[in-house]
Structures are given as C-alpha cells and as structure tokens.
C-alpha cells in the first residue's frame, strides 16, 4: 500500500517530487550563504548574535508612544520605532481611504468643476515621486508655520507652530471603567444590529439601527461619567520662554511636524491610487443593476448601499490592499525628515551604534514582512466576507 503512494505513476507523488527538490535546493542555498557569511564574519572579527538587544541604547528619541529614554535597551528602541511606523501607517491608511473614496466618487460627478478638480488632483499627486512630496510638505510646512510665540491658536487650547501642533493632554481618572463601558456599548450595538436584521428578514420591519447604535455608543459611556466616578480633565499647552527670543510650549501633547508632514504626504499620494480603484469599482457595476434596483422600488441611498457598493467593493478591495501595503512600506522614507520610525531608529541609529548590520537589517526586514502579511491577512478576510456568496 505504501509503495503505491510513492509510485512515480501516482499523480500526487509526481506533483510532490519537484516541489520537494525545489525546497531542498532552496534550503541548501540558504545554508551555504549562512555558513559563508559566518566564516567571513569570523575572519573579519565580527561576532554574530542578538545579545545587543538587551544593551543600553543611550540615545534619545523625539517622539514615542511608550515610555522611553536612553537608559532603555535597544530592544525597547526597536519597539518605539515599530510603534511609530504602525502609527504613521495607520493614520496614512485612514486618511488615504477617506480621501480616495471622496476623490474617486468626485471623478464620476456630473458637476464639471468637481470632476475636473478630482482628475487634476489624481494626475498631479500620483506622478510626482513620493520622496519629493515628503520633502515638499515638510519644508513647505516648516517655512509656512509660525514660531511658537506667534503660534496659530485654536481657542487658546491648541496651537499650531513650527515646532509641532500642541494639543491638550487628556487626564483620566478611572479610565479602565470608561474603556469597559465603550466595549460594552460595542457589544450592545452588535446585538441590536443582529436583532434588527432578523426583524427585517422575518417580518419586513425596518429599524433605524444607525441612530440607535449612535445613541448607545454615547449613552453607555456617559453613564460612567455620571455615576461611576469616571472623569476627564485637560492639561493645556502653555507658552514658555526659554531665552529672550526662544519660545516653546510646555504641557499638553506635541504632534511633531515630521509626523504631520509624513502622514500628509503618504495619504495624499496613496489616495490618488485608491481613488482610481474606487472609480473602477463603481464603473464596473453594470447599469442594468441600478435600473433593476430602482424598478423594485429601492431609493437612491438603498441602491448605493445595497446594490452598487457590495458589487463595487469586490472590485475595489484587492487593489486597495496593495495600496495599503505600499503605504506601509513607503513609510520607511520617514528617515529623510527625521520622523523616528523603525528605519531611522533601529536600522539607522541602532545599526550605527552597534555595527550589527546583518542582525538589524534582518530584524527590520522581518518586521516589515510581518506587518505586510498582517495587513494582507486582514484584507483577504474582509475580501472573502464581501465576495459573492452563492445561496
């Protein structure tokens, strides 16, 4: 019986053999290069290892989402860089999506002016190299923004200056209770929605779920403020003088101009590609679909929501996933304008201080790979959810 399995005439075995040979060849190539690298590094007096990750980093980072100072380890510095990369990518993806959808729909507008503006926007921003756009936004913003003492004030609680955008800092008491209440609200909304779907499908009753959901999301956390001792106060940024002509703001939170410029450049650039995807998606839905939907009495919103968008999304999602991946990888250009992402902090300063090029570059490559694969997995899941379900 076993012989039959490995018989060359067995189709499964025949398919497996070339694959096995390929994998074997690949592994031996990797082993060959790895040993070679080891011998060469040995000859040149370079050691290999990841012990340095526990050593003290002894350099500071402008902007960090977790507690960090130079006395922390290189491992911690890596984490700071990683979180900053994720932050700018998330902000970029968020705004690129919103702008992309708006611009994509605008290009199909009947209004000549709106359609043309959208078209010009797409043609200009997708055809200029991203690094130039990053420099443009950064140095244009730097030159345009006022010094702290002349900062643009928003009702005296927030200030936009060349050194950053200073916003009030949230100071919570009993934040955990608040967080739990928000989670409870989301669970409640989930049940409300499934109840509403059931009502609609079984009895044809329409329940205004949007309004009810919104009310739930506001009311439940509100209760914690009124009865459960949650409170929120703000620490406002205040102008501080450092010398006769040097000013800064103390208190509050500073959103550094590097982050603003990078997020702006990344989302403006990627939005053009997403806009084209959206346009292609909407144009890809047959005219007959809309007419058929109208003929069974759906209104304009319902047509868009129930008939056009579900079909358009199938066309939009896969290429948009590519754009999300591109945006994340493009965020590595951050180093050019001093935004402390993983490339600047880890593959830059840390590499230089430790001299461990092979280790650090491998870790950085693996990190980007992991980030990209995570986005891919999520988007594939979403794509599957949106795909045609044959009933």
């Amino acid at each position, binding site marked *: 019986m076993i012989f039959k399995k490995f018989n060359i005439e067995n189709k499964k075995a025949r398919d497996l053999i070339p694959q096995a040979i390929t994998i074997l060849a690949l592994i031996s190539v990797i082993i060959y*290069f790895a040993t*070679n*690298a080891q*011998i*060469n*590094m040995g*000859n*040149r*007096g*370079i050691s290999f290892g990841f012990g340095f990750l526990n050593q003290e980093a*002894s*350099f*500071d*980072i*402008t902007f960090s989402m977790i507690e960090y100072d*130079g006395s922390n380890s290189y491992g911690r510095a890596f984490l700071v860089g990683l979180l900053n990369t994720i932050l700018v990518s998330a902000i970029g993806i968020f705004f690129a999506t919103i702008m992309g959808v708006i611009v994509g729909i605008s290009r199909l507008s009947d209004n000549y002016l709106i359609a043309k503006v959208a078209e010009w926007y797409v043609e200009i921003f997708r055809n200029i*190299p991203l*690094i*130039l756009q990053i420099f443009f936004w950064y*140095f244009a913003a*730097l*030159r345009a923004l006022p*010094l702290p003492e002349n900062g643009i004030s928003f009702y005296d609680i927030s200030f936009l200056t*060349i*050194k950053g955008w200073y916003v009030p800092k949230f100071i919570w008491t009993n934040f955990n209770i608040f967080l739990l209440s928000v989670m409870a609200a989301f669970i409640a909304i989930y049940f409300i929605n499934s109840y509403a779907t059931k009502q609609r499908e079984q009895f044809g009753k329409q329940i205004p779920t949007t309004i009810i959901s919104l009310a739930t999301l506001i009311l439940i956390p509100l209760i914690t403020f009124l009865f459960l001792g949650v409170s929120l106060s703000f620490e406002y940024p205040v102008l*501080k003088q*450092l*010398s*006769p*002509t*040097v000013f*800064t703001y*103390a208190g509050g939170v500073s959103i550094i*101009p*590097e982050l603003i410029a990078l997020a702006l450049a990344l989302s403006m650039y990627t939005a053009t590609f997403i806009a084209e995807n959206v346009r292609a998606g909407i144009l890809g839905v047959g005219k007959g679909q809309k007419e058929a939907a109208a003929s069974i009495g759906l209104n304009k919103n319902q047509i868009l929501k129930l008939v056009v968008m579900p079909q358009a999304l199938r066309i939009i999602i896969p290429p948009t996933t590519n754009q999300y991946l591109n945006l994340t990888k493009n965020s*590595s*250009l951050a*180093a*050019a*304008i*001093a935004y*402390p992402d993983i*490339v*600047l902090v880890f*593959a*830059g*300063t840390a*590499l*230089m*201080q*430790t*001299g*461990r*090029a*092979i280790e650090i*570059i491998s870790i950085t490559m693996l990190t980007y790979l992991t980030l990209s694969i995570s986005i891919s997995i999520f988007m594939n899941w979403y794509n599957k959810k949106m795909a045609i379900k044959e009933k």
Partner: protein
Amino acid sequence: MIKSIKTWILVGFASLLLVACGQGGGGAGSKKSKTLENTKKAGFVKCGVSQGLPGFSNADASGNWSGIDVDVCRAVAAAVLGDADKVKYTPLSAKERFTALTSGEIDVLARNTTWTLSRDADIGLTFVGVNFYDGQGFMVRKNSGINSVNDFKNGISACTNTGTTTELNMRDFFNSKNISYEPIAFEKADEVVQAYDAGRCDTYTTDKSGLAAQRTKMSNPDEHKVLPETISKEPLGPVVRQGDAVWEDIVRWSLNTMIEAEEYGVNSSNASSLKDSENPAIKRLVGSEGELGAAFGLDNDWSLRIIEQVGNYGESYKKHIADTGILPNRGPNQLWTKGGILYVPPAR
C-alpha cells in the same frame, strides 16, 4: 535624493558582499598583506569619504574630491601606487561607513570618524591615528540671547545627524545638566541645516568643525554663532579593517609622514632638494637614508612621494581648513612643538 533607498541598497549590498565573497581577507599576523596586493592589482585605493563636508571631504562641480580626509587617501595612493590621484572615492553616510569597510567595499575609511573604544574594539575596525582633533559644540541664533550652554532651559529642541557620536554626547550632556530636550535627528546634514535654518530647532549640535562648515550653508550665516563650550572629545581619524596588520601600518605611517614632514619643515616644494640634508630624520623622510619602506613591502621613496604629491599636514590644513575660512586657527591641531597636541612617533 532618494537617500534612504540608496542606504538600504548599499547596506544590503555590503551585507551581500560579506555573504558572497569567499573566504578572503588577510589572516591576522601574516606578513603578506592581501589588501596591499589587491590594491596594487586594482590600480587604485578604495577610499570611503563623506557625502560632502567642506574642508574634510567635498567634491567640486566636476567631481574632484578635496579635503584633509581626502589627503589621507591620496597619501596612501602615493605611497602604494606612486600616484596620489589613483583613488576611487565612495561617498558614505554615517550609517553606511563601517559596513562598507568591514565588507571590503572600501579599504580605508577617511570620513571624519570619531575614534572610540567600542568602535575600535567591537566592530572589526582599527583606528590608525588622528588627523583632526575636534569636539562637539552647539550653534544658536545670535539674537536668541543664549551665550553659553548654561543658558539652555528645559524644553529646548536640538537638531543633529543620526548615526553619529553626537547623538550620544548630546544625551550625556543634557542629562548631566538635568535639562529635558527634544532631539531631532536627520539622516543627512543638508536636511539638518534646512530644518535648523527654518526654526524647527533652537540649536544645532555636531562637531565644531562641522558647525563652522555648515554655517556657511545657512541662508544668512551672520545670524548664527557657535557657543564657546566643547562638550566632548572627538578625535577624528582614518580607519581600516581589523586583521591586516601591514595595510594598517601603511595607512598609519602615511598619515604620520605628513605630520612628521611638517615638524621637520619638509614640504611639497623643498622635499626633493633635501635628499642631501644634514639631518638624518629628514633624510629618512625623503628616502635617502635607511630602508623604512621595506618593512611594508614598499620602495624607499614612498614617503617622498607623499610629501611631494600631497604635501605635509600643515599644507593640507592651510589649503582645506584655514584658507577656506572654516577654522583659520589651528587650535589643538597644531604641532606639539608649537603648542598643539599633534605628536607622532618618530619615523626610524
């Protein structure tokens, strides 16, 4: 322009070189120098320099490199190949420089690099000497009212380059003064200058020679000044790979020859006429006494060629640093006989 991509490719390529090129490299202690052989075979010295730092290594519009760091490479080329112009320059960022050297892409790194214990001991490098004694300082706007580092207050923002010792010194300094600060570190010096010039940061910190050179690039150089304090020791010097003792000696003594030549008053114009000098030290320098070159596998005129083609240290300094207005005063970079700290072991 696309700096970061270039860096990645370079670092990646350098790593690949490490991986791919067989078991090359000279074994420690061997009398023969693999690097010397390869250099002679190639016909040029592979030298790593900065991406443009006036006075140290800077390319003009037609791509000719000059500066005191460049002169070290030229001296090595003159000694080894007989022609100071036979150098292939590779401009490197602070981040790329050591990888480029350890992977064999370059053989001499003369790129205003600070000699520190960890660099010397840890990452397979050897510093062969010091060609410029520098120290880290701060630049501020003249109208800021800041006249000394003691005027710095909590919340000050400081711009600098990544991947250099300045990032570490800056932290040590501000920590010791108990001042909280905002460090903004750029990959390239040009961006640091632009950001500081625009007002993104209150002070710009790097080696004082660098500050003096970069000040000339500001939109209005007269609005800025360098504070008097020096917060660190920055002995800058050429670096070679560990493990090739002969090559290491060649680079070390090429530099030493330039300094020794200045000490004995030998320069590019009078060197050949001093062959019959009374002073044996001078005779050794111009190759008319002793067999000093043989120790490295070079001929006896190696040092004469350095002095004739490149000049002595004083000539090099005057041409690149003093006459360009970067640092007219030699300060510590003066000979020990004239109140400075330049002191090299005797060539004998």
